[in-house]
């Protein structure tokens, strides 16, 4: 059984190429069908995300290579052969399985530990099994990969701790307020990052968004988008007293919230905790505001520091994840061995002979009474019965193994006779 993994990812291929490949296939034909049409391919799965395109194929036995697979994969890339070689990696057998495990566990992702990839792998598997491209090996392998991914996620901290600025803002808010339900957000100015942060906070339960912008029209637009409330720019100090989290990102050259304004607001809010997130450069909030009791001021650099720190943390956790993958590869090896014909036949024979010896033992009293010569005869008789019984199944197994069809019989034998290898 030969497993082959051919692919390219964000580390080996530039974005322009990935997007070209990603888009072209959808319009054309189903890549899975094209791959399955290649003669040596027995089972295949095709995974395509914005960061990677990979094909995992199980080949018919005796086959080692798949001519045309790389070409097929890069058919729309317009690359010369040398460029193609640079982009594409090929893994075989254990390395291929290891790669699959690492991809599913998000160790190979651009943002390590992101959880989207597992969903994408599951989707690719669903498509493959719907078009009958998966069989015994890939079914087993993919389910194994899903288990590995789950183990990695629960046993290591790889998916913990925010690695985006907007999510870092959410975790920070949670450490201050406990939960975000019924918390109100004031969004001052508009910018991609601040909107993203606001969106995340709403996603995690924040109650209401109040939006202030120098141009009231823009504030109204955003308010509609967030189902929030737009307020007049002059109302900013009053709004400050009512909300719990403030996100600023205006293009103003000066501070738009002075320390005095914040101090006034703190008095009015009777010391309720206030989180100020200043994403603007140059800054919108006087840093002195952060010195006040019960006021927490974070600027873009502070949040980025948290993110950088968390990325390092995830890298550390990735080492633990590699150990888990190693362990699971061993398990996979065990399973793969169980698919081989010879060990199964040996186990089966051992089981029969074991049963025979057991019975001989049980009747040893009687055997002694019939004399040594007869005893030997009886043993020979039993052995020849076993050999006769085993002859047909063993020959059939060997024949099927020549035709690549032994696996289901092996599994059936192992299950029916409860054979445990290794």
């Amino acid at each position, binding site marked *: 059984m030969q497993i082959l993994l051919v692919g390219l990812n964000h580390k080996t291929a530039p974005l322009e190429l990935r997007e070209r490949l990603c888009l072209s296939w959808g319009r054309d034909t189903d890549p899975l069908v094209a791959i399955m049409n290649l003669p040596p391919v027995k089972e295949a799965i095709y995974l395509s995300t914005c960061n990677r395109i990979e094909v995992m194929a199980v080949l018919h036995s005796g086959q080692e290579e798949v001519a045309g697979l790389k070409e097929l994969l890069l058919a729309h890339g317009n690359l010369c052969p040398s460029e193609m070689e640079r982009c594409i990696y090929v893994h075989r057998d254990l390395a291929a399985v290891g790669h699959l495990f690492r991809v599913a566990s998000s160790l190979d992702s651009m943002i390590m530990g992101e959880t989207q990839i597992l969903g994408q792998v599951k989707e690719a598997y669903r498509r493959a099994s719907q078009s009958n491209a998966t069989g015994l090996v890939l079914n087993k392998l993919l389910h194994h990969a899903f288990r590995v991914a789950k183990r990695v996620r629960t046993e290591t901290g790889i998916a913990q701790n925010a690695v985006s600025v907007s999510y870092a803002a959410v975790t920070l808010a949670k450490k201050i307020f*406990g939960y975000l339900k019924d918390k109100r957000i004031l969004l001052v100015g508009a910018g991609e990052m601040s909107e993203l942060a606001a969106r995340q906070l709403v996603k995690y339960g924040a109650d209401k968004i109040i939006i202030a912008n120098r141009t009231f029209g823009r504030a109204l637009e955003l308010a509609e988008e967030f189902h929030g409330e737009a307020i007049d720019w002059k109302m900013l100090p009053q709004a400050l007293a009512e909300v719990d989290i403030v996100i600023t990102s205006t293009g103003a050259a000066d501070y738009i919230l002075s320390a005095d304004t914040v101090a006034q607001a703190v008095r009015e809010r009777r*010391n309720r905790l206030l989180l100020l997130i200043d994403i603007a450069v140059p800054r919108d909030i006087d840093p002195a505001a952060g010195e006040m009791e019960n006021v927490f001021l974070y600027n873009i650099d502070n949040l980025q520091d948290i993110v950088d720190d968390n990325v390092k943390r995830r890298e550390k956790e990735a080492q633990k994840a590699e150990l888990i993958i190693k362990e699971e590869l061993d398990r996979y090896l065990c399973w793969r061995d169980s698919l081989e014909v010879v060990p199964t036949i040996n186990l089966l024979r051992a089981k029969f002979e074991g049963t025979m010896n057991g019975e001989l033992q049980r009747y040893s009293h009687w055997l002694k009474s019939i004399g040594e010569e007869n005893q030997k005869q009886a043993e020979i008789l039993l052995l020849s019965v076993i050999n006769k019984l085993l002859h047909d199944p063993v020959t059939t197994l060997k024949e099927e193994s020549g035709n690549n069809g032994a696996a289901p019989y092996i599994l059936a034998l192992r299950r029916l006779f409860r054979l445990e290898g290794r």
Partner: protein
Amino acid sequence: MDMIFFKIALVLALFSAICYLISILIKRVLAAKLGTWILLLVLFFLTISFGFRCVTTGASNLLTQHGVLAFFAWAISAGYLTLQLKTNTRVLGVLVAPVVSVVLMGAAIGVGAAVPMPGPLQGSLVPLHVILTLTGEALLVIASIAGVMYLIQNEAIKKKRITSLTRLLPSLSDLDRINHISLLAGFPLLTLGILFGLVWASSVLSGNWQLDPKFIWAAVVWLLYGALIYQRLFLGWKGHRPAFFSLAAFCLLLVSYIAVEYLMPSIHRFI
């Protein structure tokens, strides 16, 4: 019989403290969860031990060093576990469990034979006084413990040192809420307890008992916590300042308690 259960409780309290400590060290909540369950067992065994003791010795149990401290530990555990149901503050136990352990060790030192209730102390006023003040003080201890953790967490977030410890510790709001609730519940109980004591003292004692160091000490503590409640309820103090104040009040309380208990003559003593 009561002593066996008491010893089990003491050992379990130490185990609970160790579990919490491990959870802080390995930064996993799971160990803290185990600690919480063990603390619940401590509460259970203390209750049984206390029940046995009350049956055998009666109310005088509440006047010995052992009885008082064991009840104090019981009240702290019960108060914390109840508050923990309301808030997400599991890790707060890392400070609570050691305090409970230390108090129980103090109780273990004070173990003595059962003493009959002295004449003037008989009646229901004295036990009521003891139970109410101890429960009140236990809650105030929890308030200070929450205050300590608030200060640690506040410092980390303010200084922008978001470490894995910060991630493990409860949120500021939850800690502030614990501080608030336990102050609000503890202070009236303490007040009531002191009032019962006053009624008893004025009816039984003669002479200048108002100048007894322990009485003066109680008045100071009461005023201090009264001031804190006033600031919280009427001046709208929240967060950092009440946390700091309740810690300071507790430290003062502890120091003066030790001074009064062991250095000054007083009529208010364990029997």
